[in-house]
């Protein structure tokens, strides 16, 4: 059984927000749209987005890590938002594990959003239906697109390739390998929701320098440093002793 998912690499995410707006532009004009914006040119503009990039500071100066943290629907394997939906508008697809909302069935009761610990769902204030990341279901199976384009818009956009996309049930997929080999972890594991999306942690590269590496036989100072060469006429031990 397939479970499509994103794996987000916090080790390379620079917080550029590319995924945020590319998601918005694809989906507002796509089958999940429109995604309304209220007060787009006024005070406190607010709109529907399926994906947000947040920033956290970890630690205290000077040992601070600034962490950029993209977050969208995690497409839980055991999605708590689905069973609570009274109409069946919220559902998880058997064939690929994507959690979707059927807008025509949604009554806008917001209950699914209460049942999501991640804040991954947003009620569209104009359409009054619940919306969320679809993993660009209207891209990934669209055979009129080139194979490279059949990816979620955010994945395609990401300049640092911090977003990997694939089937986490296929052990050889790029996402499974990344989770396995780079320490992929789920969010809020305490709730047993088994998010399909995973995050890869920061990894540090360090250099160890040994003292003798600063000496070395080929040190150019041995060529360039002009050690003072005393004149032969200057006094030496030979002048005072015979041994």
């Amino acid at each position, binding site marked *: 059984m397939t479970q499509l998912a994103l794996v987000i690499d916090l080790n390379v995410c620079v917080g550029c927000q590319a995924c945020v707006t590319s998601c918005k532009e694809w989906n507002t004009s796509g089958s999940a749209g429109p995604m309304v914006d209220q007060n787009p040119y006024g*005070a406190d503009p607010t709109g529907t987005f399926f994906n947000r990039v947040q920033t956290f500071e970890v*630690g205290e100066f000077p040992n601070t890590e600034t962490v950029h943290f993209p977050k969208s629907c995690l497409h839980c394997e055991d999605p708590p938002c689905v069973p609570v939906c009274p109409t069946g508008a919220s559902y998880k697809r058997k064939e690929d594990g994507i959690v979707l909302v059927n807008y025509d069935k949604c009554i806008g009761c917001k209950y699914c959003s209460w049942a999501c610990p991640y804040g991954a769902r*947003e009620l569209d204030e104009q359409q009054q239906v619940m919306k969320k990341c679809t993993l660009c279901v209207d891209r990934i199976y669209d055979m009129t697109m080139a194979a490279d384009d059949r990816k979620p818009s955010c994945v395609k956009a990401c300049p640092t390739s911090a977003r990997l996309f694939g089937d986490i049930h296929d052990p050889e997929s790029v996402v499974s390998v990344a989770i396995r080999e780079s320490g992929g972890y789920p969010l809020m594991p305490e709730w047993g929701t088994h998010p399909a999306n995973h995050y890869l942690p920061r990894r540090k590269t360090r250099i160890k320098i040994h003292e003798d590496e600063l000496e070395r036989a080929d040190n150019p100072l041995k060529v360039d440093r002009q050690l003072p060469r005393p004149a032969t006429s200057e006094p030496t031990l030979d002048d005072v002793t015979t041994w």
Partner: protein
Amino acid sequence: MHPAFSVIFLTTLIGAAQGLFLALFTAQSYAAFKLLPEPDAHAFYGQGSLLAVLLLAAGLVASFFHLGHPERAWRAAAMWRTSWLSREVIVLPAFMGVVFLYGLAHWLDWHPLLMTLPGGLPVDPSAILGVAGTVLAFALFLCTAMIYACLKFLSEWHSPLTVINYVLLGGASGFSLAAAFAAVTAPELVSFLAAWAAIITLLGMVSRIASLYRNARLKPKSTLQTAIGIKHPKIVQKTQGFMGGSFNTREFFHGQPVAVLRGVKWFFIIAVFPLPLLLLLSGMQGGAGVLATAFVVQYAGLLAERWFFFAQANHPQNLYYQSIA
């Protein structure tokens, strides 16, 4: 959570209606066993049921304000296998129907003897409807409360106390209302109903304070550390990713300072429990005005209680929405 007035009115109004119905049928059952005098069935059971139906209808109307698409509300019955909300959507109209029929039976004096129970107790349609209504009333309490109690992420709600509170607080307000209603329509039942109202109020106080005590000691299961998966004692959000607010900042935050929360808490503790208790006890002898005041005060307190119920619930998603910059 952001307390929505639609849901506050829905839960308190139908709670009172459920309690009222239970009070009516309790009185009928006692009367059947000759433990209470038989009241004027037209006025007390008939109009009482009507009152309950009206409260239920008002609650239902309030609930529609919660929906983005009320015209599709009928769809909500679909997922009764998994969704407590769906179950509530089924049980509520069923209960309304039964209460209506129950009242109708009394109104029309429709009491054909259907059977006689051992001990010579006659069973008529109102008794059957009464039992059915009682079952449904409790089912409705369960459904309504479980909508909240089943959400494991909201620890404040995720407790049997939520169900007990819904039953007891709905029961208390319903019995208080029944007592006040009886003062006008069936004075002989006032002391009985007021006494039960007082008892349920007392029990409600115990369970509600127990839940306050429990909630005050909850340790959040989710932390910023688990939310973003980084192990460090000091993590601070700098930006949530947008600045003008979103559904996430509107739906899950009450947006009130701590002082307001504390004020509301003390208001409801006083208005739901000791005040109505005093008024119920002093109205025991049939003071309609006093008893009506008891209900009104208690109901007002319950509105505050329900507001606080929502406001106090701290959704783990809020960990992700703490700062704009």
